[in-house]
């Protein structure tokens, strides 16, 4: 018999899948896909880079999943309650879950994973855990998190890749990094680790004892490792590969591949990360220290053009500091439309004297190089004396870390909630030399600091919303950084692979519900 809640989940799943609602899923078949580059290991929780997440997200699970609207839905936790003061979170776990080695999954595993394993190994989980006072298993299937103070984005932190559940019986009391089971990961997910031929393929097979009745439909998933981008495109063209996760082929190949017969493209499945491309502008010195100059840059850039031409029409031109997938986005702000006239006025008003401004492109391949050329040309056309400096990844990291730049391209993940992925770019206590990921632009505004900090721990959401609204207005006016693009990272797949992308982390857990219509 199906649990009523499971029914509710399937209904929810149906609501946000776009394909083939009428078709009944078929059992069987193996999907061939690509992981790029080869992951350093598969123990999620120990390693959180993108290739590990995309493979191991099918082996391991978290307490919650998130819809493409970033609403939490059950995964290992069947339901949860939040106390009225926003400080106590109680998770009720599923009762019929076993690890891949047959041991039952219990509340002790959750406490161990969160309180011991992640505190030691996982910096992103640690950032959340600093708000947590205690984690307790009140019975075999109930876990209570008590927070020091309310923390708005807490429920968004339980994604499998960030807050992985690892088996206590295999890891407790061992040296985690040298544990013998690291070579053969044991999770609770729909697929089990089968084989890893280094440099060639990682094979996952169906978990017959998966707790969701009937899932997964596939017999297995093979993650091929093909080092050359051109060869990956060819492997997809000739049918060896069924699914190309985003980022595995060059942008310029995408239109050609997506026009092939029986090939579907989706931009969904990145809502949790929402990669947001920005132009760092050095707020400390030079013309970029002047607000009017930074506004002029925003008006001078033809971002619609960049989206249509460079990103093949994928992605979104952003409005402001908060991306469209971020919670609490204020969409009433006046957009910085392409307006060279306005840019020239602003430059004149500030008395810009033609001082040279340098641009540092992101050394991540052709698309980014072309984009820097386009922005350079846009800026020249409004009279900014701009020069591009080519650099490699090491040089780019170093120069941003040393604040030795005027304008520089980058992109950052937003993680759904402003307190997780957005405030870090604007908070003044996040200014520190040596990292290209913090408040690199050197923006300092006491009111913004205050609002962000207050909003992170405010409760309930209405309160947070009001605070974030004010912060967005200030940022929109000050333009600490240039907002370039909410990047569209398309996944390409054969159209007969159904229900592939169905949550906000996409392929990272997509094969759970996928099936082959062959």
């Amino acid at each position, binding site marked *: 018999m199906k649990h009523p809640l499971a029914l509710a989940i399937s209904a929810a799943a149906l609501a946000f899948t776009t394909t083939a609602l009428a078709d009944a899923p078929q059992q069987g078949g193996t999907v061939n896909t690509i992981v790029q580059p080869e992951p350093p290991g598969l123990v999620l929780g120990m390693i959180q880079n993108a290739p590990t997440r995309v493979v191991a997200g099918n082996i391991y699970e978290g307490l919650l999943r998130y819809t493409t609207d970033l609403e939490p839905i059950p995964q290992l936790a069947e339901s949860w309650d939040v106390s009225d003061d926003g400080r106590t979170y109680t998770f009720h776990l599923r009762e019929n879950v076993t690890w891949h080695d047959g041991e039952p999954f219990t509340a002790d595993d959750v406490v161990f994973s969160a309180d011991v394993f992640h505190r030691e190994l996982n910096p992103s989980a640690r950032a959340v855990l600093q708000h947590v006072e205690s984690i307790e298993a009140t019975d075999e299937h109930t876990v209570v998190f008590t927070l020091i103070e309310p923390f708005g984005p807490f429920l968004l932190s339980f994604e499998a890749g960030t807050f992985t559940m690892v088996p206590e019986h295999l890891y407790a009391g061992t040296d985690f990094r040298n544990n013998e089971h690291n070579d053969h990961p044991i999770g609770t997910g729909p697929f089990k680790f089968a084989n890893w031929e280094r440099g060639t393929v990682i094979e996952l097979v169906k978990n017959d004892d998966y707790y969701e009745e009937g899932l997964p439909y596939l017999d297995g998933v093979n993650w091929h490792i093909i080092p050359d981008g051109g060869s990956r495109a060819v492997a997809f063209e000739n049918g060896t590969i069924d699914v190309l996760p985003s980022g595995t082929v060059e942008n310029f190949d995408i239109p050609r591949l997506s026009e092939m017969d029986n090939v579907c493209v989706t931009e969904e499945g990145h809502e949790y990360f929402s990669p947001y491309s920005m132009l760092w502008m050095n707020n400390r010195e030079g013309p970029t220290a002047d607000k009017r100059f930074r506004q002029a840059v925003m008006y001078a850039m033809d971002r619609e053009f960049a989206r249509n*031409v460079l990103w093949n029409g994928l992605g979104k031109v952003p409005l402001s500091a908060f991306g469209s997938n971020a919670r609490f986005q204020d969409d009433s702000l006046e957009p910085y439309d392409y307006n060279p006239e306005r840019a020239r006025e602003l430059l004149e008003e500030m008395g810009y004297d033609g001082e040279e401004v340098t641009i540092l*492109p992101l050394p991540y391949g*052709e698309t980014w*190089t072309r984009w820097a*050329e386009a922005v350079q040309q846009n800026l*020249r056309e409004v009279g900014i004396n701009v020069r591009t400096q*080519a650099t490699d990844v090491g040089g780019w990291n170093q120069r941003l870390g040393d604040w030795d730049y005027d304008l520089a391209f980058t992109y950052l993940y937003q993680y759904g909630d402003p307190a997780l992925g957005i405030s870090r770019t604007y908070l003044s206590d996040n200014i520190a030399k040596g990292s290209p990921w913090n408040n690199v632009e050197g923006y300092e505004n006491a009111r913004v600091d205050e609002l962000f900090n207050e909003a992170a721990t405010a409760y309930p959401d209405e309160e947070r919303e009001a605070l974030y609204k004010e912060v967005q207005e200030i940022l929109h006016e000050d333009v600490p950084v240039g907002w370039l693009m909410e990047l569209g990272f398309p996944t390409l797949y054969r159209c007969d692979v159904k229900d592939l992308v169905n949550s906000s982390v996409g392929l990272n857990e997509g094969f759970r519900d996928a099936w082959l219509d062959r």
Partner: protein
Amino acid sequence: MSFFARFAQNRGALVGLIILLMIIAMAILAPLLFPESPWRMVQRPFLPPLSQDGFPLGTDTMGRNVAAGLMHGAWVSLLIGLVSTSVALLIGVPLGAIAGYYGGLIDDILMRFTEFFQTIPNFALAIVLVAIMQPSVTSIVLAIALVSWPPVARLVRAEFMSLRNREYVEAARLVGQTNTTIILRQILPNTLSPIIVLASLMVATAILLESSLSFLGLGDPNVMSWGYMIGAARTVIRQAWWLSFFPGVAILLTVLALNLVGEGLDDALNPKLSRER
């Protein structure tokens, strides 16, 4: 027979000269015919050649005019070729002259130094130099010059060794001319013809080197060069052949023309040595 008549006897050289003059004309006319920056995005991307007035060679991945890029690129390529060759001569000629004239220990030291540069593959060294100095016109010119001076030094040294014991040099020494005067006034002028021929070929090599560097993404990101155009078009070669074809032809023609001219100069300057035709 006059110099030019001897030059013109080599038909190939004449053709080469004409092509070269056309390319120089392109470089000079570029700012007049296409006053706007070649980086300007002016039309829809990927317009094929001849499909629209004003865009005889089509537009590139970002809607930039390929014809404008080609004309402006001619200027960049020729400039880099000429300047880097001049710098290479400034290094190679004095070193070769001193080594060849003095001989002995000085020769040994200078030639070992030269060989040090010769043993490293040109292109690999150029890549490393540009990568270290950050890509810019200056660093590219310097890198090309630094990898291409050793043949000059060796050529000049060989010439000096064969000339330093000639009677007119002995005579100059007898009347008390200093070594510097003898090197500059007596021997150097007599080594000019092989240097000129070599230099014309070096310009061609330098243009190729610059194109290869730009192709690899190590060009100056602020100037539109032919190598850059091909490098940027490489990725879309299956969709838009014309983006790499035209600059490719331009490089081919320029290098061919310079080689033909070099050969013609060789014939004209060394009538006795030139091959029978």
